[in-house]
Structures are given as C-alpha cells and as structure tokens.
C-alpha cells in the first residue's frame, strides 16, 4: 500500500506489524516519510519506549517544542528531537484527549498494544487527508485512496450521490467520498477501532457566538494587537523545520502577509514562489514582483499556459482522486514542481484568510443580496452586484432587475439556511443537466443541498448571517476542495508540504469570535487583517481588492489544438461506455465550447466536470476493473 504513496514520502519507508492475538485485533502500519523535522532517529512507524504504542504520522505538530519541554518537566525522556515522539508521550499520558493539545496539520494512525486498539486522528481544519474502508472484515486506512485500491479484491466504483454533491458543492460531503465504500475521516475527529467495532468522535468543531453577542462592543485596536501577536506566533511555529522553508506569493493580500511575517524571521533570506499566466485576467505577476521587491527576496516563478493545464490535467485528476469542476488545481501542481526543483519542500501560504476573515466575494454577495431584499423595488441597490464582479463581463451588461433575479435577492429567501451560497449552488448544479438518464434515475431526485441543510449543527440558526456563510464555506469547501484538490494533493504530488498560518486553530477561534463588522466592513473584506498588517505591506497590496484565484477552464482543452486524450474522453462512445452523462448533450456542449472560447459559468463548469469525471473513471474505475480481470 505504501508503495503507491511514495510521492508523499520519498525520503524513507517503514512497516510495523502487531499480529492478532486470539480474538484480539492486530494491526499493521506502513509509512512513507517526507523528512522535515527530525533526522534518521525519527523514522516511522515510531514506537514508544516500552514498544507498546506505535504511530504512523503524516504532517507536523508545530507546537512540539513547547509540548516536549512540558513533558520533559514531568519527567519524560525523549530519544529524538522530532515531533512524532511527542505524540507517543502525550498519548501515553492522555489517551485520545491528547488531540486537543496538538497544534498542527496531521493525520495519524496509532496502535495501542495495551488496549489492543487503533486510533485514527485528523487535524482540526482538514489539512492532511485520511481515508478508510472496511473490506472482508478488516479496516484499512491511508492518506490517499489509491493505497486502499491496492488491497486485494478491493475495487473502485463511483458513488453517484458523491458525484451529485461534487456537481453542486464542488466536493463530496464528508465522510462520503467519490469512491463507493471509502470514507474520509472528518476534520477535527478521531476513530477508535477495537474488538468492539469502531467509533468516531469529534474533538473540535468550528463555532461562533450567538448573533446577539456577535454585535457586542469590542475594542478594535485591542483586537488588532491580538491578531498581530497570534499571526506572528502562528507563522513562527510554522517555520520550524530542519530543511529550508519557503513561501508562496500569489500577489494578493493573504500570501503577502504571510511572506512578510516569514521574511522577518528567516535571517538568511526567504525563497518565494509564484505562478504566472498568459491571460491578463488570471496573471498577477505585477503584484508578485512588487511584493518580492518590497521584501528583498528572490521570487521563483512557474509559468502556466493553457497548454500546460491541458497537458497535466490527467495527472491532476489522478492526484486529486476526484472529479473537478475547475482547472485551478493544475497550476498548483506546476508550482509545487517548481518549489521542489528549487530544493525546497516546505512552503507557507496565505490559505485560510478568506475563510476566517470573510474575504471571498460570496460573503459580500450575500450582504448585497440582503441589502437588496430589504428594498425589492430599488433599481439602485442591485447595481452593487456589478461592483462585486468587475471581472465577469456578462454581468456588467445586465439591468438591475435581472441582476437581482440572478442573485435571488428576494425577501422570501432570507430564511434559507443556505442563503449565502444558494446562487453558487444553483449555478453549479445547473451542470447536472448533462447527467445521463440512468444516473438521474439512480439519484431519484436526490438533492445535495438538502443533505447540507440536514447536516448543519443546531447552533447554526443562532449565528449571525456572515458567520453562517463562513461556516458553510469552511465546512463544505475548504477541506474537500481548497485544502485537498488545490492544496495537499497538488503539493504532495511533488513531495512539498504546505503550511497555513491562518489556519492555526488559535487564530481560527479568535477570528470566529470577532464581530462581523471587523471582518466585512461595508464591502471591504478582511478589514481587521488589512488594518493589522498595513505597515508591513506596499500600500497597493494592502488595499488591494480580493481577486479570486482562477485559471483558464474549458478553453484550455478546446479549439483546434485539443489533445487526443480530451477527444477520446469526450467521444460519444466513451461517454456512453461510462454511462454517467448524455452523449448527445455532451457532444453539443463540446461543439459549443469549441466555437466559443468564453462560455458561461454553467458550460465551463460542465465541460471541466465531465472531462475530469471521465478521466477519473478511466484512471480508477477502469484500472480496478482491469486489475480484477488480471486477478
């Protein structure tokens, strides 16, 4: 199983086996290591001093230095200088309660020989992945599903409900995955498996104050000082490594903040990395260069053309292990290759700031929709939608009444728990039009948004509307798409570890408790972050309006230069063979996209979604079928 995950850990490999005893369960741990903290003495799986506990661990415990000191003060002896051993000691003392002490991005499997049980655990925000499946009475687990597919007799099959969820939310709703029979351990939770079966518990979840408390007076200057201290510390502990740590520079506010904080703490000079594009609407190289000059660092760039996206997209799908509705993961794979080529295997990024400080357009959009709903006949208010999306030419040409209709700015919708996300969910789900009759019949009217609503915590209804929107974004899109398809998978595809200071749980909890007006002030997103970091950034970047990270979508694959694999994947016979989409409709879509390099949102979404689903089927479902035949 470990062999197929060697891209995640090219530096070392190890195995631990605890055979079953009588009716008591046994366990096997296989580990591939990306060596970042600790030398050869930190090889894994690592055993406790008495040999009764073993751990295989992916990720980092950033506060391991403080925890080690604390444990030493209580008389514990350490054999290594790394973070893995801290988990063993802390677990010996606290059992599963140790998770609340860990500040890190981690997924680990721990065998407790004293209790003859396995514990699987995952970090709070879902940075590191962890999947599991039961097959023939045995529980298997791994960082990527492709390892589970090595289990003899275990084959990949597509879960239709997960596909419906992807074509609505961009990601399956955890614990469901696109692989039928494979579950994902949800962020902030742990699983215990022993002779009594398996139990999953939550040790952390995102919470917000009640709406009535959210507006309580808070001193903004005090909050700014607290934010500065937390962000500096979150960055400081994420620079801990025995290898050089770099930083990504997108040209936007968030990555510039992190690069600035990191540069202050890396005396030898920080290496930074950026992605550049041909098309002006995607390229941010001007701002990247400005920030690099400001910091006095050498910025390494990776250029990503439309041809590059098309060329590496099958590999992107293989690494992401799920259908994608956007190509934005592809440039991230090119970027991680560039980082690794420069000899760096750890990078800090600005990921998470948009979720915790309300940076995304969707938060502003929901605010404008509420504003419009209060005065439905206004012809002035809906014009704010144009201001929100200056990069969408189609919207600029719409009348106020049409804009209001597009964005569902009606008062009746205000009680919808998914109010903030409903236009995006609706626009995305329009691509389900291409589902085949058979698939529609299997889905039997299933609605992924109803499942979203039913899975919301009871306290959701008490939160401020902005906090509800932040929760939806952080719960449903961040771990399954941003941190996974665009994050961990593309970075680890080249053995690079991303670290995200904004997702330090202390900062997440601090930001959640802030009054909404300190995050989204009018239509100025991330207000408090801008205020706290203004003196560390060039003014043009400190004041820059959020530009969503995007990449060319269907147009990367269409036109006269379309690659053979694209033609093959979208060939009507191939579409019919997998049975998921209507061959006739897909044929017309391909013709339309070939004729028009700038299709609308739905057509772009559908094109990339269908292509990636076909590639997923070819890569995983077909490969499984072949393996089965060979066996």
């Amino acid at each position, binding site marked *: 199983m470990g062999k197929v995950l060697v891209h995640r850990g090219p530096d070392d490999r190890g195995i631990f086996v605890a055979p079953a005893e009588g009716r008591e369960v046994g366990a096997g741990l296989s580990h591939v290591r990306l060596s970042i903290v600790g030398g050869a003495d930190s090889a894994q799986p690592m055993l406790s001093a008495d040999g009764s506990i073993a751990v295989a661990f992916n990720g980092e415990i950033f506060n391991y230095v403080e925890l080690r000191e604390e444990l030493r003060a209580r008389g514990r002896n350490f054999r290594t200088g790394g973070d893995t051993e801290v988990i063993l000691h802390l677990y010996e003392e606290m059992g599963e309660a140790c998770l609340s002490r860990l500040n890190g991005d981690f997924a680990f499997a721990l065998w407790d020989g004293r209790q003859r049980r396995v514990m699987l655990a995952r970090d709070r925000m879902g940075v590191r992945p962890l999947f599991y499946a039961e097959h023939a009475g045995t529980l298997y687990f791994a960082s990527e599903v492709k390892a589970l597919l090595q289990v003899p007799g275990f084959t990949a099959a597509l879960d239709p409900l997960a596909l419906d969820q992807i074509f609505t939310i961009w990601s399956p709703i955890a614990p469901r995955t696109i692989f039928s029979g494979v579950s994902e351990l949800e962020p902030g939770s742990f699983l215990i498996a022993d002779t009594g079966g398996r139990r999953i518990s939550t040790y952390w979840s995102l919470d917000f104050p009640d709406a009535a408390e959210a507006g309580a007076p808070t001193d903004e200057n005090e909050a700014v000082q607290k934010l500065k201290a937390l962000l500096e510390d979150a960055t400081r502990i994420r620079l801990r490594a025995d290898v050089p740590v770099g930083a990504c520079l997108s040209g936007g506010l968030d990555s510039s903040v992190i690069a600035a904080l990191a540069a202050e703490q890396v005396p030898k000079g920080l290496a930074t990395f950026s992605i550049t594009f041909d098309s002006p609407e995607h390229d941010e190289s001007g701002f990247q260069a400005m920030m690099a000059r400001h910091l006095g660092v050498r910025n390494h760039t990776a250029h990503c053309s439309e041809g590059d996206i098309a060329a590496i997209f099958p590999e992107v799908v293989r690494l992401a292990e799920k259908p994608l509705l956007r190509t934005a993961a592809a440039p991230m794979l090119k970027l991680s290759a560039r980082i690794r080529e420069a000899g760096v295997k750890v990078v800090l990024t600005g990921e998470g700031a948009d979720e915790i400080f309300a940076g995304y357009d969707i938060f502003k959009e929901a605010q404008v929709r509420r504003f419009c709903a209060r005065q439905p006949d206004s012809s002035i208010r809906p014009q704010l939608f144009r201001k929100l999306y200056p990069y*969408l030419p*189609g*919207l600029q*040409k*719409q*009348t106020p*009444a*049409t804009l209001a*209709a*597009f964005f*569902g700015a009606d008062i009746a919708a205000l009680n919808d728990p998914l109010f903030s996300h409903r236009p995006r969910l*609706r*626009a995305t*789900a*329009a691509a389900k*039009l*291409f589902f085949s009759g058979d698939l529609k019949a299997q889905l039997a009217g299933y609605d992924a948004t109803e499942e979203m609503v039913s899975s919301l915590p009871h306290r959701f209804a008490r939160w401020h509307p902005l906090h509800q929107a932040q929760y939806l974004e952080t719960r449903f899109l961040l771990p399954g798409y941003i941190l996974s398809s665009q994050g961990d998978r593309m970075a680890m595809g080249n053995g690079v570890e991303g670290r995200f200071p904004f997702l330090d749980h202390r900062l997440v909890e601090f930001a959640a408790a802030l009054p909404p007006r300190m995050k989204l002030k009018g239509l100025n997103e991330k207000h408090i972050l801008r205020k706290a970091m203004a003196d560390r950034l060039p003014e043009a970047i400190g004041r820059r309006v959020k530009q969503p990270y995007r990449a060319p979508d269907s147009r990367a694959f269409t036109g006269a230069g379309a690659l053979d694999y694209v033609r093959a994947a979208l060939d009507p016979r191939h579409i019919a063979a997998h049975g998921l989409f*209507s061959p*006739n*409709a*897909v044929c*017309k*879509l391909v013709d*339309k996209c070939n004729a028009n390099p700038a*299709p*609308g*949102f*739905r*057509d772009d979404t559908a094109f990339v979604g269908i292509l990636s689903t076909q590639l997923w089927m070819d890569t995983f479902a077909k490969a499984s079928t072949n393996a089965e035949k060979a066996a």
Partner: protein
Amino acid sequence: MFEMTKQALRAFMVESFLFGEETGLPSDTESLIGAGIIDSTGVLELVAFIEDRFGFTIADTDIVPDNLDSIDNIAAFVGRNIPNAAAA
C-alpha cells in the same frame, strides 16, 4: 401566434441551453433563471436570438425578468413588439 412563438422559444432553449435534453425544459410559467436554464451569458444569448428571430431590437431597459424570465413572459414581450411574431 402566441403558441408558435412559444414553440420557437422552446426549440431555441432546448438547442442552446439544454443541449438537446428536452426533459430539462421548465414549464412555460417557470423562472428560467430560477431553474438554472439561463445565466448572465445566457441572457445575452437569448436577447440575440429574439432580435435575430423576430426582427426587432431590445432596449437595455427592457432586459428585465418581467420580460425575459419565463417562456410565457418572453412570448408576451415578443407579441407586444411584433404583433405577427411567430410568422417572422
């Protein structure tokens, strides 16, 4: 005439927005935006189709849901502008 206009509109929508999938066509009174049939680009395609097919120019101020957000509304809007619309 009204019915013929609606037939022309349905045929256009099935071909342009539903890629031949007739089952996805909403009822004549249903919101096309609400049903996800047209997005911001789709509205512009619809306007171009009406102008080409029925031979009149649509003022920016007429591009509003009251005129364009259902098959019935569009047919009525076309009828007001071109009394013999369906024959065009």
